[in-house]
């Protein structure tokens, strides 16, 4: 947009120049408020991240809101079971836009070590869109901080107009995702086809 040399010269004179996109994204990324929502063991590492040693407050995210209406980041920390999945989708729907999801731990990414369980949902990205995945069982608090920084980079690059604009600026993007119902043997539907398909695999015989 503006020549970098001119920008540094102006800032030396005390004049700050920026674009609306930078300012908007800077405000949003520096004050992500997570939803206080821990499911299992990864929740303890998430709490440890917010404690004095690892200090998530430096990123502006120490305010864990209990109510989804006031949060804009949902850190799904822990195993997602089929009994809990409708509640998670409901909570996601109740969060106002712009909202982001971090899937923390292998259980939230794909079911993790409990993948063979009859009550375990093999990954939360079957029902809601996920922005950052953190592998680990449990991931160290430093890994959660790196994921937060990755999310901040992602938010930084989001344009305000054009095809790549985020869902909250796009009137045609779905605002709410359908909530699965409890069936007799499994959740119905077992996944949201618009969001997730089994990855393609070619087998060598």
């Amino acid at each position, binding site marked *: 947009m503006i020549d970098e040399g001119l920008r540094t010269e102006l800032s030396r004179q005390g004049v700050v120049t920026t674009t609306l996109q930078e300012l908007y994204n800077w405000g949003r990324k520096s004050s992500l408020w997570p939803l*206080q929502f821990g499911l*299992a*063991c990864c929740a303890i590492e998430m709490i*440890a991240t917010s404690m004095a040693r690892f200090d998530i407050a430096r990123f502006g995210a120490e305010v864990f809101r209990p109510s989804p209406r006031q949060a804009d980041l949902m850190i799904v920390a822990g195993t997602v079971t089929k009994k809990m999945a409708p509640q998670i989708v409901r909570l996601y729907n109740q969060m106002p836009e712009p909202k982001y999801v971090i899937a923390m731990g292998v259980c939230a990414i794909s079911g993790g070590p409990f993948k063979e369980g009859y009550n375990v949902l093999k990954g939360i990205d079957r029902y809601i869109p996920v922005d950052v995945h953190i592998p680990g069982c449990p991931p160290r608090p430093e890994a959660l901080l790196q994921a937060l920084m990755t999310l901040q980079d992602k938010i930084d690059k989001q344009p305000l107009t054009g095809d790549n604009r985020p869902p909250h600026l796009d009137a045609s993007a779905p605002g709410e995702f359908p909530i699965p119902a409890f069936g007799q043997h499994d959740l119905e539907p077992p996944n949201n086809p618009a969001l997730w398909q089994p990855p393609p695999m070619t087998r060598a015989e």
Partner: protein
Amino acid sequence: MIAPSATLELGESGEPQLLEVSLGPQHPSTHGVFRMDVSLDGETVVKLKPVFGYLHRNHEKIAEKCSYLGSIPYTDRLDYICSLTNNWAYAMTVEKLAGLGVPERAEYIRVILSELTRLINHSALAGFLLQDMGALGTPLMYAFREREKILDLFESLTGARMMCNYMRFGGCRCDLPPGWIEQTKNLVANFPKFLDEFESLLTGNEILRARTEGVGVLTPQLAVNAGVTGPMLRATGVNYDIRKVDQYGVYGRFKFRVPLGERGDVFDRYMIRILEMRESLKILEQALRDIPAGPIIDPKAKLRNLRPKAGEAYGRIEGPKGELGFYLISDGGPNPYRYRIRPPSLINLTILEDMCLGRTIADAVVILGSVDIVLGEVDR
């Protein structure tokens, strides 16, 4: 809370009778995905039904497909704050089932790690209980500061902060690195200062006393009949500590007292946990002083492809939350036929309704905090 969460029943003349609130699975004070369906008359609790299963991860079914060795990492994730005591309970049960012995050095290491885990659990509990009462975060920060020091010790020994996966059948996985004993002795010497600071800030605090004394009283007869174990049972005055009753491991060699409560209310349970931390420090001092040299695993123990003879065994330990037991039935194959975990948190929840009836809903939150549940254990 997730809607719909509250319904109002109207009486015949149109006046409101009972308010039904679901303190849903996502709630700041439910210690995980736990739900309580509470019926309120004004603010008084009339009926309380706990609902769980939101973290049911099918550990028992998965264990029937895994070998005995392969189930050890899953035991870490049961009570995820205290992973080493879970490992010990399972290793002890398999040793009973297969008839394996444990060398002395390994027994001492097990006791040291188990008491460090007890310190972690009780200080984290004090932090979480006070957070439920409104001291948002500060006691928890102090408690987690000490927890981080102990987790550093675990990481240098086992390689992981939380999911340690350290005990094996017949001993432990690897020996203590050089300097570990000195670091632990240092930590044990400095820990009483933290406890004194914690107690001076909290135990005499007016708000803590007003909110916990006389709240959630549990009688000893009901506690024994309902199978309550651990600090909750000892707070009612019943002297039953499995470390003294069964004397598993080498606990028979250590001199320590078992603190008992008088009234069985939330304040007694909080104080019992603080006193138990001091007793754990005594055990740690003695164990660190007396630990012998030697092998850390029975050389004849077979880990992979362990096929115990057909039979069954029940082994139990005094975990930080209560009696943690494992019941294994073997049919001679490499996988257990039946693998059952006796979860202390689940059984301690049996009398949650009895303790909360007639109290206000704010007390119900504090009482739940004092029961000390971890959903990984309740739901398995």
